[in-house]
């Protein structure tokens, strides 16, 4: 559970190409292999299919009880309703406000948490002041601490300084809980750079900030991309911190989605629920499909966050 075991460079190795047993020509076992993989793929795709077809059906058609069937007549009504008018309790504004809240929280939270973590990683690699290693050890320990252990004290602390249930409050919380894994990511990256680079800059008289901005930041672009992917999906998908720390005006999309679906009043509109689910999943899915192999790297480094 040290920093080393956590950072198996899965992404890089994964991209090298297969090195397993040599394949023969098309044999029975080859057919078996593909059959297994295709069946597995169908299992993984099935929920996505169900989400999409359900969201395009009318309620009467859903009541025909054919969850896998393609809709006979496609309707986009549920999508509009999910976005614009679906109700959570008394508010009927759809997912719209949640979406914009999530955008704000994710954008600001990603930037701030990455700046903090990059500075940490840089300082831990080149400016190890007294006690820095103990701090790092505590952070790595923090990666394993169940959130529930620190949530209540954080509520009390943020309330003391008047930031509980505010926008800055939720940003602070995301920065705190993103810090262990992101710091690890940046520390491992900076530690892999040649020390001579740093020493040469020191000889030229550059200080802490100069070296950081002029030498380290330009070199850290690839690792920053991984960190951005990690944070955007992580913060967007967060539910627990959003429920506890964001407060009603800043409620993120995931929380609002759950409220819409689990609201007990009125008829359950499954098509609207599924449209809302897809809308909430759209941003991380887009990040996933656009970033491709970068995402795998991010996971290898950051699944600890989970």
């Amino acid at each position, binding site marked *: 559970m040290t920093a080393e*075991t*956590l950072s*198996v460079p*899965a992404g890089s190795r*994964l991209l090298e190409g*297969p*090195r*397993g*047993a040599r*394949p023969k020509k098309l044999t029975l076992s080859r057919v078996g*292999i593909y059959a297994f*993989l295709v069946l597995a793929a169908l299992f*993984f795709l099935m*929920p*996505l299919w169900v*989400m999409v077809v359900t969201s395009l059906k009318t309620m009467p058609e859903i*009541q025909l*009880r054919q*969850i896998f069937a393609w809709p006979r007549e496609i309707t986009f009504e549920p999508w509009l309703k999910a976005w614009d008018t679906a109700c959570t309790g008394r508010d009927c504004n759809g997912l719209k406000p949640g979406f914009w809240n999530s955008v704000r929280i994710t954008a600001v939270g990603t930037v701030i948490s990455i700046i*903090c973590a990059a*500075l*940490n990683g840089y*300082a*831990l690699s080149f*400016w190890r*002041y007294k006690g820095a290693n103990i*701090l790092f050890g505590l*952070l790595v320990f*923090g990666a*394993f*601490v*169940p959130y*529930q*252990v*620190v949530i*209540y004290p954080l509520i009390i602390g943020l309330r003391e300084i008047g930031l509980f249930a505010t926008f800055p409050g939720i940003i602070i919380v995301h*920065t705190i809980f993103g810090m262990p894994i992101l*710091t690890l990511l940046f520390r491992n990256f900076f530690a892999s750079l040649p020390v001579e680079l740093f020493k040469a800059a020191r000889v030229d*008289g550059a*200080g*802490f900030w100069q070296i950081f901005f002029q030498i380290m930041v330009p070199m850290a672009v690839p690792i920053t991309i991984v960190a951005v992917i990690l944070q955007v999906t992580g913060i967007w*998908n967060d*539910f*627990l911190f959003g429920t506890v720390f964001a407060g009603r005006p800043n409620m993120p999309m*995931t929380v609002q*989605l*759950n409220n819409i*679906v689990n609201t007990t009043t009125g008829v359950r509109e499954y098509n609207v629920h*599924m449209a809302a*689910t897809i809308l*909430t*999943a759209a941003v991380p899915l887009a990040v*996933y*499909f656009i970033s491709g192999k970068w*995402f*795998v790297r991010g*996971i290898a480094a950051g*699944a*600890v966050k*989970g």
Partner: protein
Amino acid sequence: MAQLATANQDAATAASGGRTKRKAFRMSTVMAVLGTTPMIATAIGVFVICIIYSFVLSFTSSRIFPAFDFIGTAQYERLWSTGRWLVSVNNIWLFGVLSIAANMTVGFLLAVFMDQRIKQEDLFRSIFLYPFAMSLVITGLVWRWILDPNYGIQATVQGWGFTDFSFAPLVRAETAIYGLVVAGIWNGVGVTMAIMLAGLRGIDAEIWKAAKVDGIPTWRTYLFIVLPMMRGALLTAFILQCVGVVRVYDLIVAMTQGGPGIATQMPAVFVIQHITDRSNVGLGMAAATMMLLPVVVLLALQALIQWRANRAKEAAK
């Protein structure tokens, strides 16, 4: 004489140069501390002080707000006689063992099959991994809909003529947890697969040739030679799973809300309920401390093993 003077001068400049250099270094160290203020605050403020604070509160009778009237271990005694907590602990074990076992097995199988020089590897990987990009709330909501007794898989398959078909685990207290396991695996097995695939690819290609020369069947090579060699990947995947299991919260809230009844209560849900709706912080913090305990024990064990290994290494020198 002149020589001496220049030598002195040299010494003087060297000394003053050293002083400014040291001063500059000290300045930069101050900057380093300044630049990492958030880290210092998080490491000490959150991961030390907050944890101690929670621990201390677990010995008090705090309700909504922290109160410091110490009542000894009464909260722990109460905790271990609270049905809801006992169910939670049972569930986390069952859920943990089942989902980790299934996840590791399926993840390894997928990785092995993916490693057979298949075509469209990227496509398959994308398919196996995409659920992980989505929130566990979404996972929970989708699977609840799929497992819906009236409109989900059960009703659909019955509509195809298999009227005896029954697959709606969420509605019955005894089976609800299996529904959670299925959803959890759908969400997370891709990651396990990716880590194990990386482990497989990290193994020396010579091993394969040697095993082939010795005439060992492929499946035995995987099981008895390759599997033990990818300890690192296995350990990483396992640790990730453990952390995920202890933290499971979103999935429960979205999928079962702890029900039917209290059948799928989990410790993480228990703690949050007690510090919010149930306003019984003392009991909640006792539960939180119990959640931290296994983590601390495991980390201590890990540290001990590492320390002994290091000592053995030094002794060997």
